[in-house]
């Protein structure tokens, strides 16, 4: 059904949130987007060499302690389409074995511009709740390393079965086959634990929380991603403007904002073989406080799922959709509102289109990432989200 926008104009306000106020956005997100615009012209960005990485790390650790250190066994990591990542071993005097760590740092521009400080805080907040990589060190604004970075403990495991099929970028297309029965319960448990987390009592100073009982949770997201679009779009796309308008005019109230992982899907959890035990929930960079429906809708996206030979869709390649929703309700205690779930499916399709056709294309056009070729590859999938937007807004 087409939204009759002529009627929307006369609809009385349901809360004090101005749906067109583009300044309503988390302060840290605003800072990041301002920085992105400011730094964009500094490109192009070149992938760092091992020698450069060693020098950056030596400078960083020297600021922590005057004791001599050695950085060895530097190895570039693949995976993901966003951050530049290196495994390395840090040795201090007398410590022959050393500590295996991972440097995760921002290129000049990534497919998503996010905050390493937020990532560190959320890792620390969940340290005793879920398997997450321990935070060893942080340079949130790149003051020492030269670009924003986080250093994490090295975690062993795989993101897709070693002998499996359907390996793709960022895990897309992974078929878990018999592993699914071991992984699905842990996946759902992780999602429920993230949403049950008491964020009020955690050190989350890089975050701000939307006002409960208002549309602020949704409008903050619309403002975040629409700003990314308008700041970066290399070419106008009519449905993006239409979707933004729809998302503002249909924003739902969020009664109880929760911590959202915002990218919990296949490819973003590690497990060990052969037990199937989760060793890490990965990629918390998009985490924010918002509506739990947003996380559910993200995990359920078609791009992140697979189909059985019988044609049944599996959420994140793990579990049928109806079962996913019912088990989630049981574990989390949250009741799913189908209207809100559909709203966030639209928002997530919009967000994916912004990422693929907006930010990724801008970063690649400027040559500002070490993975420009990955960005243009993912950008070529943007049409999938555009069609989903049309279909879902018509059905809503």
């Amino acid at each position, binding site marked *: 059904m087409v939204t009759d*926008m002529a009627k929307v104009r006369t609809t009385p306000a349901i809360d004090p949130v101005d749906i067109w106020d583009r300044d309503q956005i988390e302060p840290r997100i605003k800072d990041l987007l301002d920085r992105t615009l400011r730094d964009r012209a500094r490109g192009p960005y070149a992938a760092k060499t091992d020698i450069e990485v060693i020098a950056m790390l030596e400078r960083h650790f020297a600021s922590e302690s005057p004791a001599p250190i050695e950085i060895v066994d530097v190895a570039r990591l*693949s995976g993901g389409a966003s951050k530049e990542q290196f495994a390395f071993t840090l040795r201090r005097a007398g410590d022959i074995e050393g500590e295996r760590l991972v440097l995760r740092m921002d290129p000049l521009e990534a497919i998503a511009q996010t905050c390493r400080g937020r990532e560190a805080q959320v890792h620390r907040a969940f340290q005793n709740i879920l398997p997450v990589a321990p935070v060893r060190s942080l340079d949130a604004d790149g003051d020492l390393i030269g670009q924003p970075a986080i250093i994490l403990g090295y975690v062993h495991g795989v993101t897709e079965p070693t002998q499996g099929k359907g390996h793709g970028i960022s895990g897309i297309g992974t078929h878990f086959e018999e592993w699914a029965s071991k992984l699905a319960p842990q996946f759902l448990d992780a999602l429920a634990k993230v949403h049950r987390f008491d964020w009020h009592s955690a050190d989350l100073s890089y975050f701000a929380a939307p006002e409960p009982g208002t549309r602020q949770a949704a409008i903050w997201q619309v403002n975040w991603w629409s700003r990314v679009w308008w700041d970066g779009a290399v070419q106008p796309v*009519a449905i993006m403007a239409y979707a933004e308008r729809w998302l503002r005019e249909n924003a739902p109230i969020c009664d109880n904002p929760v911590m959202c992982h915002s990218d919990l899907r296949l490819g973003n959890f590690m497990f060990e073989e052969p037990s199937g035990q989760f060793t890490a929930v990965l990629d918390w960079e998009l985490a924010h406080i918002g509506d739990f429906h947003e996380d559910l809708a993200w995990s359920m996206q078609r791009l992140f799922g697979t189909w059985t030979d019988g044609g049944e869709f599996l959420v994140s390649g793990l579990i049928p959709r109806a079962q996913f929703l019912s088990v989630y309700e049981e574990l989390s205690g949250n009741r799913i509102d189908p209207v809100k779930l559909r709203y966030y499916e639209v928002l997530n399709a919009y967000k994916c289109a912004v990422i693929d056709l907006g930010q990724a294309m801008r970063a690649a056009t400027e040559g500002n990432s070490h993975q420009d070729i990955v960005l243009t590859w993912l950008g070529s999938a943007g*049409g*999938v989200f*555009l*069609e989903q937007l049309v279909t879902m807004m018509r059905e809503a």
Partner: protein
Amino acid sequence: MLPNIDLRIGNLVKALEQVILPALPASQRLARDQVRLVIGHLRMLGGQWKTALRYEEISFEELAALARDLAELVEEPQQRLLTSALKETATCDHSSIDALEDANKILGQAVDMTILGGEDHRPLSRAASEAVLEYALRHARRERIWFQANQLDPDRAELPSIASMLATA
């Protein structure tokens, strides 16, 4: 043109697949991943380059048709904005991909501003909304068909070929 573009693309893919990729150590995963993507892009380009101009021309014609439809459905100042963009792009060089892309940007900006309704967020009529959605569906479908060789589209099995899409546009 000798060697022609198809031959050269084929040579590039062969060199990457048979010489360069096997020479990269298994530990260099990012390098190996990027080589595979280069191969994928080259194969996709091989299926697109001959019809890229026609693709951009269709995109322009479709967007111009939407702008004309909207111009009849909206009021000032959006109507003036659309009319002006249509006039500016009416004589664009259809033999140049760059000129067509530039024209698409001019028209696209006017369409975007119309959809958002200006500073007072003027509402779109039902007819204007339907025109945008109808256009957007054709646009998205065209993009999906054009890039289906990336194999990222979960519903690519339902898509026709590029040649078929261009023939019916």
